């Protein structure tokens, strides 16, 4: 049967007009399979229409709704109330915005700023390889694709960047590095030198401390650290096994 829980959300808020930050408590009742995005909507409809938060697809496919719940970065659209109570062992939750980009208001961060690092990694084929003679498409065996396809599932929610323990400000972060690594593993990309240069630059993989927090928190369950480890093991230089 349906079960209803009484929960408390302690939400970190920010007002850009006054630059004030504070924590606001919201107490409400929520059914067991309501998601936290449903809970935020309920707060807007019943308690406080001014609370600002982000979501878009609410299918865990766009990554807009990432926040920290009890310190853990996650997608609120896939966090069910009952699962949250079991996972965190209580009915009180602290909700904070990600710190990977400046806060615009409350739980909304400036994704333009967060994405600057991904853009730097050039998430597209910079210089396409020639296609096989007489063919209009490339041929990529399922075995070859298998090596990197997991990394293509990244939605840039920045949970990994949030969890990353590398405190260096210039570090590109796990998701941005992975965007470049995917294309080093993709036979259609020729601009390997340019990519390697960024990977092994001041901003690159050597800033990683191998905590594997990225893999631990990834909502898409991508083993992000694996791809970074391949780069650290120098697997992409010409001559090295792909």
């Amino acid at each position, binding site marked *: *049967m*349906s079960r209803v829980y009484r929960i408390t959300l302690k939400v970190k808020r920010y*007002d*850009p*007009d006054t630059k004030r930050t504070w924590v606001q408590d919201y107490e409400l009742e929520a059914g067991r*399979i309501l*998601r936290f995005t*449903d809970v935020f*909507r309920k707060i*807007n*409809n019943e308690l406080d*229409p*001014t609370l*600002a*938060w*982000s*979501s*878009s*697809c*609410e*299918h*865990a*496919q*766009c*990554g*807009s709704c990432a926040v920290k719940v009890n310190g853990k970065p996650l997608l609120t659209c*896939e966090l*069910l109330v*009952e*699962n949250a109570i079991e996972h965190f062992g209580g009915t009180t939750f602290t909700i904070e915005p990600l710190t990977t980009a400046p806060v*615009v*208001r409350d739980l*909304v961060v*400036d*994704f*333009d700023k967060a*994405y600057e690092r991904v*853009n730097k990694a050039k*998430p*597209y*084929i*910079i210089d*396409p390889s020639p296609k096989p003679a007489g063919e*209009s*498409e*490339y*041929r990529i*065996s*399922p075995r*070859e*694709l298998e090596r990197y*396809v997991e990394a*293509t*599932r990244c*939605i*840039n929610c920045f949970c990994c960047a949030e969890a990353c323990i590398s405190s260096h400000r210039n570090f590109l972060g796990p998701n941005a590095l992975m965007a470049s690594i995917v*294309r080093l593993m*993709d036979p*259609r*990309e020729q601009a390997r030198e340019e990519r390697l240069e960024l990977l092994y630059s001041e901003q690159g993989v050597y800033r990683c401390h191998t905590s594997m927090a990225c893999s631990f928190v990834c909502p898409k369950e991508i083993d992000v650290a694996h791809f970074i480890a391949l780069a650290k093991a120098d697997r992409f230089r010409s001559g090295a096994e792909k």
Partner: protein
Amino acid sequence: MGNTLQIGSTIYCDVLIIGAGGAGLRCAAEIFERKPATRIVALTKVSHPQKSHTVTAQGGMAAVDPRDPIDKPIYHMFDTWKGSDCTADQNIIKKIVDASWGQITWLENHGMHFSRDENGRLSKRTFGGMTLNFGESSARRAVFEADRTGKGIMDTVWGEAMKGGISFLNQSIATELIFNGRRCVGAIAFREKAGDFVAILSKAALFATGGNGQVFRITTNCQQNTGDGLALILQEGLPIMDPEAIQFHPTGIVGPGILASETLRSVGGILRNKDMVRFMERYAPKMKELAPRDLVSRAIETEIREGRGILNPDHNIQHVWIDLRHLPDYVHDEQIPEVTGFFRKFVAIDPKKELCPVRPSNHYQMAGIPTNEFGEVQKDPQQIIPGLFAIGECACASFHGFNRLGSNSILELITMGKFVGERVVDYLGEDLGELPAGAGEKTFSQFSRFMEAKGKDNIGHIREAMQGVMTEKVSIFRTEDGLTDTIEALKELKDRADRAPVSSRSWAMNQELVHRWELDNLLTVSMVIAQAALERRESRGAHFREDFPERKDEFNYHTLASMSEFGQVSLGKRPIDMSLFEAKGEHYDRFGLIERKY
């Protein structure tokens, strides 16, 4: 507040794209290929283009591989025509189908990570309504990227647009079009984060604003799909086409309405009622679960209405089951991992062991801004509005008629995106004028009304009430009484909306203010849907009138609906293009007014 209600700055560009999803950015990529260094500004309501609704498309894209020994483009054209219930435009069908494989190749060449077969070529699978030899047997015609094909498209076109040097205005909404005489020369936009208004002047402006799914309570659509593009066109006194044509996906996951792709049925998922009976055998003996979407949706709703549904206590929603338990582990793990993951995540169910609750969920608007085959927006069937284009789900050319086939929507995005890009280039020689006097006034009066309303109500509650009435009376089954009631209810909701206050006076990232603007758009679009559905006293494709269950020849036209003031809808007609039939070529008889039976 007085200082905010003005145009803070003016942005000059060659092309303004309103909505940076798959269609808008495919178009941008085409423009860059043809004319590098074109100044393109793309505005999107979401926080980043990669957050667009396109990323949620799962299953695949239909296209006939020229190497395929048995499939032919003419079969794809026939399936689309039949699926549309004889209401798609045949010139558009031919144009898109003929271009389809070339566009798949374009995506593949630009880095999309398609699933591959053992030879390293693109894998293919079948979808509902996809047949060989005019309905004889199922065709394997959809290429795909696992169950995240839309994401593959989005990532590819976003990358290409960025490579070309596009400028994005993220988290911004277009609130008004700017005209110079008959010509569209740009738009006024509200930048949500900064809370200010800008004017954008362009040589060509494109709508690529997506769908209107938030009109309904149960929808697969993202939160941002509030019919903004359609509402803006209506606000300018222009018509929208076929608003009553709205598709419901047969299998939304109970609760959030999240799409459980057709792929589940194409890999062998079976629909069952509470008695565990495979009921599709009764409704579509030949195609069963793979019958077109509207037939499956009605079958499920009928099962539920006749007492053979199951109640989910948490969401208080009736549903049927999709049974995936008999499928081998590799199908679960390799072919449908993200969809089965949805059941685990969103309803805490393991599809390998348990039955999964599904119910029809609003999915797609065949409706849209009427355009010709180049995406140019039409004022009426004879006249275009120079400088104004529409593509993607917000547009209606019309490729889908009154019912869209699975895997045809993302195909439309990329093909029409390319064609519109080609045509936009012709406009790049135009001069950029000055900002016309009075630009922005409509917006400022609208937003000051929003900010000054002093009633006691909640915008979210009004939206939910509207979604409730539209879901109950204007979704899968429609009747004269239900539609008349709905029109009255919408008028009351509009009155409530006009009095509803915005709690915060702040302009920067005032989410409630944007929700208020969306509410007007939703109510506008809902009103036009209800009125058009009332006037179409027949059943056609996804538009099903219980009181008029048959298709009638007297309604063989597209509806053109405009609204002078709220509730005052006028309806016109656009003829359906039947050029394939009229050309009298090989198989032309397949493109007449055929029956839609599967």
